């Protein structure tokens, strides 16, 4: 597949990127519209010496992904709303044990069973806060199969670099859309390898971080005898039930991400230089937003767009900076206001924020976005 051009579905592009990233384990449970990722992985993994396993549910899928990743295999699962809800507890375990892995949510409209075959962007805050307790997460989005391919590679790399589950928040339309995807030759795909300690077992502490606040891992079965737990733990990985150790652990889990936002956050600016109104869009909504931008420019409105690739951590600094330059932001999203709240928070009263909402089941008509731009 590598080094060639393909005409493939978003879900398939995601699976191919996982293979190209070195993913060798997939545990999942079928769910529309993410099933094609599982199906592709079931076909492809054995060809590269990996294992696909269909688990009994998404609780098990997420747990198996953590186990396999601890065992040294780059691991992934893919799901949609109902399954994403079931994965939450073990995503939290992955955060606290600091297990690199990738979780794809091909969003469909909820709540509950909702519209299984139709798109939405309703799980963006669930991605941020869905597991209990306070933590930082990395979540990426994509507006085309090509972009889904690219962010999947990025997701694997970030998960290894920062030792945590990285979420890919795509949606039904991108997942099921078939478009041109260029898969670069393998020597052109940058891979961030697992951080493995150079210390011998006597000197190694599983949760003693390097300078960037991330602790290197070890191979299991190599005599390091590590302990990893979902309980609050010290640098040895041993549970300690106390407020000071809780503070140490949470500080590190939070600041290993917050201190590195510039490395993690990725976005694209389109015609923002002279813009007075900026559309902030992500995922599938980028595409009607692009059209709305063009229509607005035709009408002489100085409109630009900020396309978010990284959703969490949020592109706070960029929004703050743009807020002092523009009249307002227009945020189209297929929910009733999630990322728009972040935009509003970051603009801190310096610019107006208009939400263009959609309950799900279809994507925006560019005119709906244009209307909001014209209103500002």
């Amino acid at each position, binding site marked *: 597949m590598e080094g060639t051009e393909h005409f493939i579905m978003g879900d398939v592009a995601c699976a191919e990127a996982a293979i190209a990233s070195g993913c060798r384990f997939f545990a999942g449970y079928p769910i529309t519209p993410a099933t094609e990722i599982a199906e592709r992985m079931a076909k492809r993994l054995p060809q590269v010496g990996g294992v696909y396993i269909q688990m009994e549910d998404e609780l098990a899928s997420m747990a198996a992904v953590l186990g396999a990743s601890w065992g040294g295999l780059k691991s992934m699962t893919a799901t949609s709303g109902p399954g994403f809800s079931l994965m939450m507890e073990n995503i939290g375990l992955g955060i606290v044990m600091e297990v690199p892995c990738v979780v794809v949510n091909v969003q469909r409209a909820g709540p509950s069973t909702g519209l299984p075959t139709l798109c939405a962007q309703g799980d963006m805050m669930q991605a941020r806060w869905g597991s209990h307790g306070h933590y930082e997460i990395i979540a990426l989005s994509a507006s085309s199969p090509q972009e889904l391919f690219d962010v999947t590679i990025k997701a694997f790399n970030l998960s290894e670099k920062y030792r945590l589950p990285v979420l890919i928040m795509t949606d039904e339309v991108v997942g099921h859309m078939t478009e041109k995807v260029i898969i670069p030759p393998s020597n052109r795909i940058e891979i961030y390898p697992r951080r493995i300690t150079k210390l011998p077992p006597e000197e190694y502490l599983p949760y003693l971080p390097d300078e960037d606040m991330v602790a290197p891992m070890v191979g299991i079965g190599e005599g390091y005898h590590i*302990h*990893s*737990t*979902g309980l609050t733990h010290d640098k040895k990985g041993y*549970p300690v039930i106390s407020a000071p150790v809780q503070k140490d652990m949470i500080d590190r889990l939070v600041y290993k991400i917050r201190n590195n936002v510039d490395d993690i956050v990725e976005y694209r600016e389109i015609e923002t230089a002279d813009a007075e109104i900026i559309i902030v869009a992500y995922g599938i909504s980028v595409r009607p937003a692009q059209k709305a931008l063009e229509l607005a420019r035709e009408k002489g409105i100085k409109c630009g767009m900020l396309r978010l690739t990284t959703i969490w951590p949020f592109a706070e600094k960029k929004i703050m900076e743009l807020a002092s330059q523009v009249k307002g932001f227009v945020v189209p999203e297929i929910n009733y206001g999630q990322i728009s709240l972040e935009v509003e928070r970051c603009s801190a009263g310096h610019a107006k924020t208009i939400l263009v909402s959609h309950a799900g089941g279809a994507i925006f008509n560019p005119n709906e976005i244009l209307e909001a731009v014209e209103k500002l």
Partner: protein
Amino acid sequence: MKKQIVEELNGMPGTHPLSSLLREDRMPHIWCPGCDIGTVFSSCLTAIHESKIDYNNFAMVSGIGCTGRAAGYIKLDSFHTTHGRAIPFATGLKIAKPKMKIIVFSGDGDLFTIGGNHFIHAARRNIDLTVICVNNFTYGMTGGQVASTTPFNSKTSTTPQGNFEKPFNLPYMAAAAGAVYVSRWTTLDVRRLTSSIVEAFNKKGFSFIEVISSCPTSFGRKNKLGSPLDIIQHFHKISVIKNGIHPKDANLDIDKEIVVGKFVDMEAPTFFDLLEKIYPPETEKGA
């Protein structure tokens, strides 16, 4: 008393026969005096030692509960996961590390009440895991509530008038789901339990050992079973060994009869056998 033992251990590292398998720096443990989990845990450590298998080839995965804390005391690669999910975590770990012996050590509530679905599927897959269940008939850690293993009529904090539901027969369930090795012992049968664990380690496929245990603090007290010693004597009085019987006949009536023994020991293709048959390892890479 407990403190003194710890001090002795700390003072003379390496003197306890199993000390190289114990995280002595984590003692004292959280288990109550008289709790049977320690008995099962040390049986497991002894079995690891007696198996003659390189210690580094073992890893332990536990769920949540008093029993689940075992993973934090064993000096091997060990994982303390979420409530009920030790088996799927272990499944992923085993697939990544197929040559290692993965022990799942957890409680009845964890493995069979919240986690029952994973248990039957792992047995069905016949994936090489050794699952050791400390069955103390209750949720010890949360103060002794009813579980899917609580005997009919027994008192727990959430069945104050007695349990009106019927419990699982765990060996029968394990066998029906596909486990190739199934045994049940009480904490009185330490030697038989230990050799059973060694056998399970050497078994290809999914092995399951149920250990009838006491939780004197919660289950024992609520059901007026007496001191830890009284409970052990009771196990002695009512347990009968019936090796080889059909596990459906492995009666478990804590008033009258506890049938123990090895019920299943058979050969069947494992998860890895079947996987390799369909995808031989020489399958062309990167096709």
